[in-house]
């Protein structure tokens, strides 16, 4: 058990390193791709167009390392990253770490609510469909899931805004601060997740219920409920949790888009803003946090599968 966890943590640590390297390298390329007058534009963005002068532009140039040789600048860039020096936002002038610490909480609350909604909506529906595959509930939930999967989260978000804010006036369309603001964005994100997880749970339930060991448990004399509890739920939780890992991609990608749609002040929103404003340090910081969050969540999923599935601990 201990060895399995250690090797898993090792692998994920390597992945975290890769994330940092890929994000660092891409943002470095970004600094080099900035057009010549970029430092002026960034300086203008920071200090206002009246105050901009050669001095301010030079300061920006230095901050981005635009005056060094490409290789030296690249190494410097990665060294800063390795020592957790993410620099300052070119737009607000605050340190990137400070900005991120404000945004992270918002993103987490959105993502967590979405996941809880997905599980609450998706799992029971999936299990009920999987116990009676081919019946009407299964068919209806399949059609729903297919429809929801064909819509990106932002379209679901638009539909929710149109319905609940613009038509029914029940919930605010955008903004943050109160619980009522959290409903629509997390639902927009959660519905798509629920669609996928209901099908995963459905397939897992159907597989388990059709397995030889499930039938054998009944033949041993256990009741239907005892069999479901002792052999059904345990076995189906293994693929369901493993698939959570795959859904994390959807979650992270969804956070970026949904936060932008609802002006939710999280990491994803900040990333999009930073890209539009060419705020390179912020792009690096936000992408890094999203990437590392992805790795961290994957690690948690891995550990959960390891705990659920004793076969993994042997391998």
């Amino acid at each position, binding site marked *: 058990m201990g060895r399995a966890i250690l090797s898993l943590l090792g692998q994920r640590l390597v992945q975290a390193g890769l994330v940092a390297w890929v994000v660092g390298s891409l943002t470095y390329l970004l600094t080099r791709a900035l057009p010549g007058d970029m430092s002026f534009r960034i300086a203008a963005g920071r200090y206002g167009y009246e105050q901009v002068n050669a001095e301010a532009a030079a300061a920006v140039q230095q901050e981005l390392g635009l005056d060094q040789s490409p290789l030296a600048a690249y190494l410097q860039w990665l060294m800063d990253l390795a020592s957790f020096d993410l620099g300052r936002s070119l737009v607000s002038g605050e340190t990137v770490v400070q900005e991120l610490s404000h945004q992270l909480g918002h993103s987490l609350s959105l993502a967590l609510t979405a996941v809880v909604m997905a599980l609450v909506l998706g799992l029971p529906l999936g299990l009920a469909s999987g116990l009676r595959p081919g019946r009407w509930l299964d068919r209806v939930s399949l059609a729903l899931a297919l429809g929801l999967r064909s819509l990106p989260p932002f379209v679901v978000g638009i539909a929710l805004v149109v319905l609940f804010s613009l038509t029914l006036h029940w919930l605010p369309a955008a903004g943050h601060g109160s619980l009522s603001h959290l409903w629509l964005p997390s639902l927009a994100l959660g519905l798509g997740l629920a669609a996928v997880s209901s099908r995963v749970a459905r397939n897992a339930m159907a597989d388990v219920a059709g397995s030889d060991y499930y039938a054998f448990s*009944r033949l041993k004399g*256990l009741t239907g409920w005892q069999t479901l509890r002792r052999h059904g739920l345990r076995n189906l939780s293994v693929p369901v949790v493993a698939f959570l890992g795959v859904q994390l991609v959807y979650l992270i990608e969804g956070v970026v888009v949904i936060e932008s749609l609802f002006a939710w002040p999280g990491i994803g929103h900040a990333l999009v803003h930073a890209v539009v404003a060419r705020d390179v340090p912020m792009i690096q910081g936000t992408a890094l946090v999203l990437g590392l969050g992805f790795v961290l969540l994957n690690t948690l999923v891995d550990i959960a599968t390891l705990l659920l599935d004793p076969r993994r601990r042997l391998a």
Partner: protein
Amino acid sequence: MSTMMTVKELCVTTAGDAPEVLLEPISFALKAGEPLTLIGQTGSGKSLLAQALMGNLPGSLEVSGEVWVDQQDVLSLPLSERRRWWGRRLAMLPQEPWSALDPIMAIGEQIGEGHRLVGGLTTVEAEQATRRDLAHLGLEDSYARLPMQMSGGMAQRAAFAAARTGNAPIVIADEPTKGLDRGRRDEVVALLREALGSHGALLTITHDFEVARQLGGKVMILRKGRCLEQGDADSVLSQPTSGYGRELMEAQPERWPEATAAPTDPQRKQAAIERSAPTLSCTPPPGAVLSASALGKSRGGRVLFKDLNLAFRRGDIVGVSGPSGSGKSSLGDVLLGLVAPDEGELWRDPSVQPSRFLKLYQDPPAAFAPYWTMGTLIDDVCRLHRLDSARIAPMLERLGLAPALLDRRPGEMSGGELQRFSILRALLLDPVFLFADEPTSRLDPVTQRETVALLVELAKERDCALLLVSHDEALVTKSCDRIVSL
């Protein structure tokens, strides 16, 4: 002897407007202390019978007739009522223990839950009872093991304990020895006999004559859902009256005639057994096409074979036998150059094309690309080696294969037909050495006998050396001139 179960005109058909009869009406009585064994080939409706008796046939099938237990007709009871009998009055042993056991639950737990939830013991008592069961079965160390950590024989014994926690007096065992080698099979049969005791009833369904013989009691022979004959095990098994019963009996390797060229005198045969013959010189013996000297191979730290000297001349029929995991298949793969030996030397007649050293596989469907018709695959071989395709027709006839089979894909024919096509495909290339790796272990006994006989005959006819590997010692003893035991 009291009657535990009476079956009258039990019949299984498909549901729907045009029902197809899968199991023809069958009647028998199961008595306390006297085992009843049903023998028949795969697809003869045997497994449907077990499910029909338990009352867990799939909904797409319909069952009629009567099954009386304790003055009640099981079939007339609603499903929920029948389920309450499971484990308590009727126990069923699974066919495939590995898949019948929960893959992620410890063995002890799986037996203990039955003691607790079905047998009504407390948690502590249940654990004690489980440990007693395991100790009795020689599985003391297996309490915390997962099914994947056990061998087939161990898993079958554990599943046996799990099925019997409710102390059901009537036990139905459906192919309980499937896939087990001889030693493990005998252990399971002993367990079945013990479970029967003097008050229980036992119905065993098998294709293995030897299982029926060891169990004793009564025997019924089934074919295509019909009962051909029944009676005492001793008389039916030694002198079956139905043609099919005789065929089945004759298909037991023990009863095969000796290979014609083999030394008939048992002592001479013994002398022909090679274990570690005196070291051969490095030069191959005259007339050999393949020879090996001081061959050795280990796997997972275990020595499979060592200092093995072998030479094959054309027309040699050499058998290899030994329990599973003893390295029989590895020996063949090493000789064919598919696996590198750890030590020793291998020599092949350099004047013979490499494609004339060939192999037949254990699982016939796995040896063909499944997407193409047999005709296409055979044509491919002819085209590659520029062979005359007119040779195919007479070979089909010789192997008893209908030409229409050429239009089918490998998945669309029986294992016996496929294995004969593997033989045909190999013979097209005029092989000088053929390694047959358990070529008949997935075939039923009658087909097995035909296939092995044909293979040996053809190898001699075409002057090809044959290395026949089987876990069944009787099979290789009867068919081969020389034997290597590992």
